């Protein structure tokens, strides 16, 4: 990327940093999750500390030992999609498309012509079309049917959502899906950031989606015995496990110069990203792996640790994650760990698995733009192993200039994003 070497210095605009990399900004956001069907409703819920977790409602739920989750309520696909689309879109694709339409509408972008050719989409999901797997396995195994709908494969594949987003908006550049369990959407957004920063794409739609709240999806999680039967209480000494959620978050990541030139409203700047692998255990997290991702993101962003005012934690509410995450943050930030705020919004929207980082990025944007820090609700008892300011139970007003969003997945895959106020 040395401008002198490749002779492209003349094409660089004035606002481009000296390292030759482009600045990346967020110009649109969309979501659907248990707290609401759009961004304003979700942010209002964050401010109020509203809980989206309730009794699950779907077929055979009475056969589950875990019967709570953060389910999207009042979801009528027919309000948004026609009959043919519903036949082709699993719920994770439906959620993605709704969020993507909101994000693109906010950005004001039109991808016709040249822009569509150099724009793309990268999304995260862990389970893809899990409802479709579940329904069709039930049909052939339980109900003994010998025929399934012809669209089962295009409906369940993990890249279905990314492909439909590319078709919806005419994004003809890079389009793919990443699956890194609970870090999927952070990995996706990190890659989108890198692609816009490097010039591989001018605009990327990015984020993630999950729709795993069905009998098979919850039954599988039950087996691991890490789920709570009553509530998600991150960092609280009496926490007893995670609670699954569902939904999607999609953002427009855009070249800063492009956004400025067209006078777009900028929600935040994406300034850094890092990923690491624990290379250690398939389920137990490692503080060292988390630390390397956090320090990597700070380094990539050129941020000093004391510039970070807020961290949206992975904060699953399991015994193992929360103490490991707090140890990692305490070690990376030293004395500053006692001054920064770190909350987990999963107690409100549940653990949206492959889509969780995307919905959580909304809390980061709210912190930077609105000066409101989303709380960790359900917090009841201090835990000496989680002795940080976790913004317990009530949102707080605070001006922060830089934030991080953590995601630490099963498989030991860590992805941390850094945003800055603009």
């Amino acid at each position, binding site marked *: 990327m040395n401008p002198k070497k490749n002779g492209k210095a003349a094409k660089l605009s004035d606002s481009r940093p000296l390292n030759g990399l482009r600045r990346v900004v967020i110009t649109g956001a969309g979501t659907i999750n248990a707290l609401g069907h759009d961004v304003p409703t979700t942010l209002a819920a964050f401010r109020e500390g509203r809980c989206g977790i309730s009794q699950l409602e779907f077929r055979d739920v009475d056969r589950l030992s875990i019967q709570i989750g953060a389910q999207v309520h009042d979801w009528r696909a027919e309000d948004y999609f026609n009959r043919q689309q519903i036949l082709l879109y699993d719920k994770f694709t439906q959620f993605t498309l709704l969020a993507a339409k909101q994000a693109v509408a906010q950005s004001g972008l039109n991808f016709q012509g040249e822009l569509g050719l150099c724009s793309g989409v990268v999304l995260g999901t862990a389970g893809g079309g899990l409802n479709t797997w579940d329904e069709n396995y039930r049909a052939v195994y339980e109900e003994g049917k010998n025929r399934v709908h012809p669209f089962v494969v295009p409906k369940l594949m993990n890249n279905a959502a990314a492909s439909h987003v590319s078709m919806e908006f005419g994004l003809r550049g890079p389009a793919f899906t990443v699956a890194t369990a609970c870090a999927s959407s952070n990995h996706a957004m990190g890659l989108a950031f890198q692609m816009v920063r490097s010039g591989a794409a001018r605009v990327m739609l990015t984020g993630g989606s999950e729709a795993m709240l069905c009998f098979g999806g919850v039954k599988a999680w039950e087996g691991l*015995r890490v789920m709570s039967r009553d509530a998600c209480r991150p960092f609280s000494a009496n*926490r007893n496990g995670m609670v699954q959620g569902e939904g999607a978050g999609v953002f427009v990541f855009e070249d800063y110069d492009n956004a400025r030139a067209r006078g777009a409203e900028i929600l935040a700047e994406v300034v850094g990203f890092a990923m690491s692998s624990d290379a250690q255990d398939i389920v137990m997290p490692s503080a060292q792996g988390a630390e390397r991702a956090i320090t990597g993101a700070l380094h990539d962003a050129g941020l000093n640790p004391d510039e970070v005012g807020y961290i949206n934690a992975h904060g699953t509410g399991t*015994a193992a994650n929360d103490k490991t995450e707090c140890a990692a943050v305490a070690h990376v930030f030293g004395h500053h760990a006692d001054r920064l705020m770190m909350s987990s919004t999963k107690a409100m929207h549940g653990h949206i698995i492959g889509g969780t980082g995307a919905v959580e990025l909304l809390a980061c944007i709210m912190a930077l733009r609105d000066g409101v820090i989303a709380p960790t609700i359900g917090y009841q008892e201090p835990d000496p192993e989680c002795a940080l300011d976790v913004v317990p139970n009530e949102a707080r007003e605070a001006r922060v200039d830089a934030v991080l969003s953590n995601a630490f997945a099963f498989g030991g895959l860590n992805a941390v994003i850094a945003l800055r106020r603009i």
Partner: protein
Amino acid sequence: MTDHIKDRITAIIAEQAMLEPDQISDDSTPADLGIDSLGLVESIFAIEEEFDISIPFNANEPDKSDFDISTMGTIIAAVERLVAQKAA
């Protein structure tokens, strides 16, 4: 009957720990036997399958569970209780 339950549990734990059954005593803790949290969850599943019982165990709060997993002896006693409840 009781000895039979104990033998079947010991066999399950021995397989998980990659030990011989006679290397396992009532005082052995899962940690003594080199069984980590995932191994413990797997062992509990195997015991549930073996006896067709449902064991209340949450890996996040093993101490608060009604199912005491501190030693082989407590695990055997808890399984015997669940098997008896099922028969009743």
